[in-house]
C-alpha cells in the first residue's frame, strides 16, 4: 500500500527532475543576503567562543601551577615565568604531558611561575607566543619541532629566551635560543633487549603513529637491541599514518594487524594513538608459541592505567636534566651555545623497571646500559623511515 501511495505521489509532486546543475551553494539577492550576514555573525560568535575556551585553558593551567609555587624567588638572570606551548593536551602520558610536567618541576625548583598552553595544534603559534610573552613569560619552551622556524623568529622579535626541540645547530642563537635533542635510541636499545628475551613467538612488532624523527630513532635503537640479543627474532614494522598522533582507532587497527603477523611484544610509539595500541594488545589473542602479548611504551609511564597487566616497560624520557642544564647555562652566560642531548648518562633517558621483567632479563638490560655508556656499544641513529625499512628487510 505504501509503495502504491508513493508511486502516486511521485506523479503528483516529484516528477523525475531534469538533470541540471545545482544552482550552487551561494545564492544572490537580498533575500539571501540577510541570512548570510546572520550566519557570518553566528560563525564569529562560535569562533569567539572557541577562542575564549582556548584562552581559558591557558589561564586555568597557569592558576593551577601557581598553587604549587614555593616562596623561592628566582635568582637574578633566571626566568621568573616559564611558558610552554605543546601541540596536544598534556594528559597523554607521553610527549606533551612529560614536557609540561618537566617544566613545572624545574620551575618549582627555582620559584618561577608556569604558563601552559597545551593543545595548541601544529599551526602558527605566533599569536599564542606573543600572548604568553605579553603575560610576562621570559622563557619560552616550544614543544614541537614544527614550531622551530617561527619560534626562532619570535625569539628574535621579542628578545625572549626560547627552547626549541629537534632543530639541532640551526636552532642555536647565543643567549637567545637553545635546542634539545634526544639520544632516545639508547633507551630503545634496552627495550629491544627486553623484547628479544621476552618474546616467545620469536616475532616482535614496532608500531609508530607517524614518520617522526624521534620515533624513527627509537625504532632504530629497538631493532639494534633485538638484533644484538637474539638475531633470529623477526621484526615487523608498521606506521599508523602520516601524522596519526591522536588517531587511537587507527592505532588499534594497525596494532591488531601487527600482532596477527605473530608479534607478541609490541613497541608502540604514538601519543594519543598509543591508547588504541594498548587496547589492541589487551584484547589480542596471543600468536602461536606465546601465552601473552606485551606492550612497550615510550616517553611516559602508563603503569597506573595498566589494568590488564600488559605494560612490560617504557622508554621513559625526562627533560628535567636538560632544563636544569639550560638554567645553568643562563647563569654562566653560555645559553644557546650548544645543543642539549637527553641521554642515558644524564638520566634523561631510561627504561622503566617493572615487575613484569624477570631479574635475569633486567640484569641483561643493566649490562647493555653499561656497554652503551662506556662506548663499547654504539647504538645507530636512524632518522629516516626508509632507512628503518632497510634494516627490517
Amino acid at each position, binding site marked *: 500500500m505504501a509503495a502504491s501511495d508513493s508511486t502516486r505521489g511521485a506523479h503528483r509532486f516529484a516528477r523525475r527532475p531534469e538533470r541540471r546543475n545545482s544552482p550552487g551553494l551561494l545564492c544572490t539577492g537580498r533575500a539571501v543576503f540577510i541570512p548570510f550576514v546572520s550566519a557570518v555573525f553566528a560563525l564569529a560568535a562560535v569562533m569567539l567562543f572557541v577562542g575564549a575556551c582556548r584562552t581559558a585553558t591557558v589561564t586555568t593551567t597557569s592558576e593551577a601551577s601557581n598553587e604549587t609555587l614555593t616562596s623561592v624567588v628566582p635568582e637574578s638572570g633566571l626566568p621568573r615565568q616559564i611558558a610552554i606551548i605543546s601541540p596536544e593536551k598534556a*594528559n597523554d602520558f607521553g610527549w606533551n604531558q612529560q614536557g609540561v610536567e618537566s617544566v613545572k618541576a624545574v620551575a618549582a625548583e627555582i620559584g618561577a611561575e608556569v604558563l601552559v598552553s597545551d593543545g595548541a595544534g601544529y599551526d602558527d603559534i605566533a599569536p599564542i607566543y606573543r600572548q604568553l610573552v605579553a603575560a610576562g613569560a621570559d622563557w619560552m619552551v616550544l614543544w614541537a619541532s614544527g614550531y622551530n622556524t617561527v619560534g626562532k623568529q619570535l625569539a628574535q622579535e621579542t628578545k625572549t629566551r626560547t627552547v626549541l626541540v629537534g632543530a639541532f645547530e640551526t636552532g642555536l642563537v647565543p643567549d637567545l635560543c637553545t635546542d634539545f635533542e634526544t639520544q632516545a635510541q639508547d633507551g630503545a636499545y634496552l627495550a629491544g633487549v627486553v623484547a628479544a628475551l621476552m618474546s616467545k613467538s620469536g616475532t616482535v612488532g614496532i608500531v609508530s603513529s607517524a614518520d617522526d624523527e624521534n620515533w624513527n630513532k627509537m625504532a632504530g635503537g629497538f631493532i639494534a637491541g633485538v638484533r644484538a640479543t637474539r638475531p633470529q627474532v623477526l621484526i615487523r614494522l608498521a606506521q599508523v599514518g602520516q601524522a596519526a598522533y591522536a588517531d587511537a582507532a587507527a592505532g588499534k587497527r594497525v596494532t591488531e594487524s601487527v600482532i596477527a603477523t605473530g608479534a607478541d611484544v609490541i613497541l608502540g610509539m604514538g601519543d594519543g594513538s598509543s591508547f588504541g595500541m594498548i587496547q589492541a594488545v589487551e584484547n589480542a589473542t596471543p600468536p602461536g608459541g606465546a601465552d601473552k602479548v606485551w606492550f612497550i611504551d615510550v616517553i611516559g609511564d602508563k603503569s597506573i592505567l595498566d589494568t590488564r597487566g600488559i605494560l612490560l616497560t617504557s622508554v621513559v624520557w625526562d627533560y628535567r636534566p636538560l632544563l636544569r642544564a639550560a638554567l645553568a647555562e643562563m647563569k654562566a652566560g653560555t645559553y644557546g651555545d650548544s645543543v642539549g642531548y637527553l641521554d642515558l648518562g644524564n638520566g634523561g633517558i631510561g627504561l622503566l623497571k617493572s615487575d613484569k621483567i624477570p631479574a635475569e632479563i633486567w640484569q641483561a638490560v643493566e649490562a647493555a646500559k653499561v656497554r652503551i655508556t662506556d662506548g663499547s656499544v654504539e647504538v645507530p641513529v636512524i632518522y629516516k623511515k626508509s632507512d628503518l625499512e632497510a634494516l627490517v628487510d
Partner: protein
Amino acid sequence: MSGILSPEFLSALISGMVLAGMPLLLAGLGETIGEQAGVLGLGMEGYMLFAAYAGFNGALYGGSPWLGLLAGLIAGLAAALLVAILCVWLRLDQVVVGIGLILLGEGLTSVLHAVQFGDTSPRLPSVPGLAIPGLSRLPVVGDSVFSQPVIFWLGIVLILVVHLLLRSTRWGLKVRAAGDRPEALDAAGVGVTRTRFFAVLVSGALAGLGGAYLSVVSSGFFWPFMTNGAGFMAIVLAMLGRGRPVWVGVGAFLFGACVSMATALQLVGVDVPTDAVFMLPFLAVMTALVAFARRSYLPAALGVPYRREGS
C-alpha cells in the same frame, strides 16, 4: 615476508577494514538522508566529534557500550537540531553553519576533554563480539566478520532500512522531493521545512552513531580531533553514492579496505615509500570521483534554503 599472509593476518586486515569503514558508513548514511532532503551536512565532522565525546562518557559512566552509542546518537541529534534550526528554519547559509559546527565541535570537545580528563585518561573495555553460530568458525572471515559486535550488523541492516525508507516510503518520497523540487512538495501541501527539519535530525542521529562507534567500539577512548577527517569522507561517500545507501556502504568498506591495505603493504614489505602507501585510500576515492562523480546526481535544491515564492 612470504609467510606473513596467514589466515590470522588476513583476518586482522578484514577486521581493520570493518573498523575503519563502519564510522564512515553510519555517517555516510546520515549525510545521504540530509543531502537528499536538500541540506548539506558540512558539519558532519562536528556531529561526530560531539557524539564521540558523548558516547565515550555514556559508556564510561553508564557501564554499557549501548548507553554510549545511545548517548552518541542523542549528541548527534542535538547538534543536528542546532543545524536544523539555523539552516532549515532560519535559512542561514549551510556552508557557513557547517564550518561553524566543525569549529565548535573541535573546540568544545577539546576543552571538555581537558577539563574532565585533564589528569586521567580513562579507557573503555573492549566491546564483545557476537559470534554467529557456525559462521564464526570459518577461517579468515569467522573472526573478522562473523564475530563483530552487534552494532556492525545494525549498520548493515541500516543500509537496507535507509534504502527502503528513501525509495519505498512516502516519507522517503517527501525527503527526495524536498531536495529536488521543494516548490512542488510545497504545492502538494507538504511542509518543506518540516520535512527537511526531520531529515536533518535523522542525519545527525546516524552521524552520532558513527562518532560514538569511533570512541566506544573502535578505540575505547576519546581524544580531541579523533575523527581525523571521517566526517568529510562521509560527505564524499554520500555524494559518490548518489543517494543510494548500498553504494555508500560499498564506498565506506572500500575505503576501509584501502586503509587496511596500506598497513598490509607495509608489513608485507612492498618496496614503496610509506607516504605513497598512505595515499592509497585517498587515491581510491579520487579515482572513484573521476570515474563516477561526473555522472553523480545531486539534488537540485541541495544547499539552497527554501523560500515560498512571494514570501
